[in-house]
């Protein structure tokens, strides 16, 4: 059985089945090397998509995340960036589903309530 968190809920809005909820079309990605990479991702992380249109939609998200991983690699060269189990999620879905700190904009550092620890001697 596929673990619950790996089942992707349908997000396409039911309009034209070839378009994603954002109105873009991903059919052009079928049969490309990116789709082959997507298939091995599905196998590796045991993913399951309920409908063909959901599969095509997630393929589009996956390709966008391949580009994002390349950007992150360029901006962060000492780490290794690439495909992870989250590569079929948009960044909004990822933040909503896997993060969860209501830190927001931390302009006022002193927003935290509670006491503040006194500085310790750290020299020598």
């Amino acid at each position, binding site marked *: 059985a596929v673990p619950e968190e790996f089942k992707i809920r349908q997000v396409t809005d039911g309009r034209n089945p070839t378009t994603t909820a954002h109105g873009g079309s991903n059919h052009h990605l079928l049969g490309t090397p990116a789709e082959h990479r997507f298939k091995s991702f599905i196998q590796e992380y045991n993913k399951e998509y309920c409908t063909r249109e959901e599969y095509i939609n997630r393929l589009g998200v996956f390709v966008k995340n391949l580009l994002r991983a390349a950007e*992150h690699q360029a901006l962060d060269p000492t*780490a290794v960036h690439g495909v992870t189990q989250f590569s079929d999620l948009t960044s909004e879905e990822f933040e909503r589903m896997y993060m969860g700190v209501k830190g927001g904009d931390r302009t006022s550092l002193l927003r935290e309530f509670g006491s*503040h620890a006194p500085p310790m001697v750290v020299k020598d």
Partner: protein
Amino acid sequence: LPNSFDWREKGAVTDVKMQGSCGSCWAFSTTGSIEGANFIATGKLLNLSEQQLVDCDNTCDKKDRKACDSGCRGGLMTNAYKYLIEAGGIEEEDSYPYTGKRGECKFSPDKVAVKVSNFTNIPIDEQQIAAYLVNHGPLAVGLNALFMQTYIGGVSCPLICGKRWINHGVLLVGYGSKGFSILRLSNQPYWIIKNSWGKRWGENGYYKLCRGHGMCGMNTMVSAVMTQTS
């Protein structure tokens, strides 16, 4: 301060956990800091319940009434400490297991495993953070997780990572002194960070983030908790 330090080697850190598709990272960061403090106080490493926080904690930040703990829809570690002080403590995972969904509160005061007596925010200076880590135990940390969705390994030291947008809660368990960062032309010291996305993510569930630059805002929301050994 030692050049490098790792609470995992001293047995103060439980296994990497998996929050699933639920925005409950704040609860995992909270239990991690309490598990560490309790280990240091008693020598016992207990696996504590995040689900109790997800189901029962609705505490709001004193200064920002909108920032309330709300299960899978996010929270703050300092709110959670406050809830635990008032609730009387936290149960173990075994008695209140994690489901990854918010449910009705099933907290039993008679099953409390660890009591929380106080908590404090740690200064933003990273030397101070290292000193409190060594002296006090693993610390709860908030950071901007923008680069974590695609992170596979190595020392992350992004050229640009917003310091003011904090969206994820993790646990600081140690730091290392070696970890080459080409663009900063030196051996980068780095933080060792325990995440809650399972062992398959990152380096066996851990994240290495370069130290000394307030990277991704990791020094702006650091807190430590004190347990009450009855």
